[in-house]
């Protein structure tokens, strides 16, 4: 019998859901089932990780640990080799803390986990796991258990190309799109979500696991490009026909989503506890900040002249920095990182800042970043600059950019070599806000509303719902007043050497040495106990 049903809604925010569960504009209630769930359940804003981004935030929700501990900071990870920087993708083997799927499994609970990021290559689980953010070409070999792909393939209407992540298309997130292209974007995500729902519905019925978890990410994708049609603050006084058409499409998506939630809750049965959470919220970003352009103008970064080959052209147009690494001291690796990596010279004559100058270089950079202004309005464009040892303390901190920028409008930076450094968008785009959503309902859940929970609380809540002790090294808690039953604390979750998600790995000596150095640094700063 399914005890715990968890529905992840990537990027969901009460800014939108409060409207869609009521009827402020006479459009009808778009999400009546969710409205009823909230009315009878418990609701709270949910604070994301310090950098509210899908991979680190969902992995924190799965591990109960901050990114400095679990080790996932972005979609893309980079390896500085001195005269070059190599970019590749984070994957499940980079997660250095145990997930709740594993914790539940080794305490006798069966799970189903669908569409969560950073779950490929798939770890062994007691139940079924289909990772999210995986190309259709690689779905078969990235599912657990073996043979699951053929079971899913037998579901009526299954289309792997509709279901899976399209890396080329999703790279357009944040770009200015004409309205008709945005409509196409929204239309694309309708069948995709339907595919995930059909798999969820089938596996919930067939497996009936103790913990069933599925994540719908159309919310995030649609809000990125069609935010202006959803945000109540941006609603035009006299809406155009194209705006009304786009809004109707978006509402259609949320109406469908409400139906999926209803059917999964009904399928789970009246005894199941229901939880919904997002990895971050959403807000409007009207401004573009081209951070590598700024670093170049300051003389800290040098662009690379691209070659003529197809691979070179692909590389130059990719969404990560393409630079002359022999002359670059600091750079932003990817727009999604909002980070700045400071390069420390490995020796005399090597590229980077001399180690002895690191602190003063970083201080100068932070001070100048905090003074960056919009030339049109004179407003500061950076809300905060986070130092990695403060924002992401933990053994994996060394893999994080030295600085993480929080822009004034919470937007993502651009890494392109385009002038000017700061400009306004034709239409505000949707961007990640640190406050997402938490909703709970079902037997044993106290109805009401709370002040802000942390995303790190969610795995504690799920463990408690499964009648399992909360590992004592989880950084979150079970908020007071959410459950009637008393919480128990148990042994800590397991620490994994990087690369152990699938099979035992040979440790990389250089990275192990670096981790030891960082651990020493953290101890010296007082972030870790001896």
């Amino acid at each position, binding site marked *: 019998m399914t005890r715990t049903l968890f529905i992840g809604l990537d990027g969901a925010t009460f800014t939108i859901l409060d409207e869609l569960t009521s009827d402020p504009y006479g459009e009808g209630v778009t999400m009546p089932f969710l409205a009823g769930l909230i009315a009878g359940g418990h609701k709270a804003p949910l604070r994301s990780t310090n950098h509210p981004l899908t991979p680190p935030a969902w992995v924190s929700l799965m591990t109960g640990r901050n990114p400095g501990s679990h080790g996932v900071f972005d979609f893309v990870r980079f*390896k500085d*080799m001195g*005269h*070059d920087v*190599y970019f*590749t*993708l984070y*994957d499940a*083997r980079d997660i250095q803390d145990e997930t709740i799927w594993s914790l539940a499994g080794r305490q006798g609970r069966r799970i189903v986990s669908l569409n969560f990021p950073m779950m*490929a*290559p798939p770890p062994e689980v007691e139940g079924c796991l289909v990772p999210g953010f995986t*190309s259709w*070409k*690689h*779905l*078969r*070999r990235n599912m657990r258990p073996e043979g699951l792909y053929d079971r899913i393939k037998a579901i009526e209407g299954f289309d*792997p190309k509709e279901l899976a992540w399209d*890396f*080329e298309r999703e790279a357009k997130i944040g770009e200015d799109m004409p309205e008709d292209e945005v409509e196409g974007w929204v239309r694309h995500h309708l069948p995709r979500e339907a595919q995930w729902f059909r798999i969820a519905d089938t596996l919930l019925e067939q497996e009936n696991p103790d913990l069933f978890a599925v994540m719908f990410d159309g919310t995030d994708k649609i809000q990125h490009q069609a935010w202006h049609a959803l945000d109540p603050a941006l609603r035009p006084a006299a809406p155009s026909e194209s705006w009304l058409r786009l809004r109707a499409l978006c509402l259609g998506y949320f109406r469908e989503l409400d139906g999926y939630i209803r059917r999964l809750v009904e399928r789970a049965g009246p005894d199941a506890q229901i939880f919904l959470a997002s990895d971050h919220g959403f807000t409007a970003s009207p401004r573009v900040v081209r951070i590598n352009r700024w670093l170049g103008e300051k003389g800290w970064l040098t662009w*690379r002249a691209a*070659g003529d*080959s*197809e*691979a*070179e052209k*692909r*590389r130059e147009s*990719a969404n990560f920095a393409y630079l002359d*690494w022999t002359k670059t001291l600091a750079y932003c690796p990817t727009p999604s990182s909002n980070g700045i990596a400071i390069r420390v010279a490995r020796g005399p004559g090597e590229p980077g800042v001399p180690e002895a100058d690191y602190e003063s270089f970083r201080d100068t950079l932070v001070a100048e970043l905090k003074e960056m202004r919009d030339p049109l309005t004179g407003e500061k464009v950076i809300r905060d600059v986070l130092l990695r040892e403060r924002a992401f303390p933990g053994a994996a901190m060394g893999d994080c950019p030295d600085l993480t920028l929080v822009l004034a409008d919470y937007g993502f930076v651009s890494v392109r070599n385009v002038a000017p450094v700061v400009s306004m968008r034709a239409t505000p785009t949707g961007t990640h806000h640190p406050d997402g959503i938490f909703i709970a309902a079902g037997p044993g859940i106290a109805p009401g509303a709370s002040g802000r929970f942390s995303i790190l609380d969610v795995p504690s809540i799920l463990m408690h719902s499964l009648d399992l002790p909360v590992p004592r090294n989880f950084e979150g808690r079970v908020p007071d007043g959410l459950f009637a039953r008393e919480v128990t604390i148990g042994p800590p979750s397991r620490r994994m050497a*990087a*690369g152990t998600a*699938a*099979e*035992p*790995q*040979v440790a*990389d000596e250089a*990275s192990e040495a670096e981790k030891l150095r960082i651990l020493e640094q953290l101890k010296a700063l007082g972030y870790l106990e001896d």
Partner: protein
Amino acid sequence: MDLAKVQELVFEVVAGLVADWDLDAEIGPTTRLVADLEFESIDIIQMVVAFEERLRKRNLGFEKLLMIDGRYVDDLSLGQIAAFLHQRLTVAA
């Protein structure tokens, strides 16, 4: 592991990767990833993961094969990949 065995492993892993892709290509030492198997960047990353999983070893140094003089290569044959892996495994041993 001798070169022939490494080559066999490379063919097997790549054949497994492309099994659902509806391709008509032969798998052999001269088969090229992009020109013959329609690989995109993400497929190359998945291929590296597949080799690491199969060999139970991370950090095989594929960046040294994929980047030459700081520039990304246009294409690679399965024979080149096998030779690279063989050399890396020999050094590691």
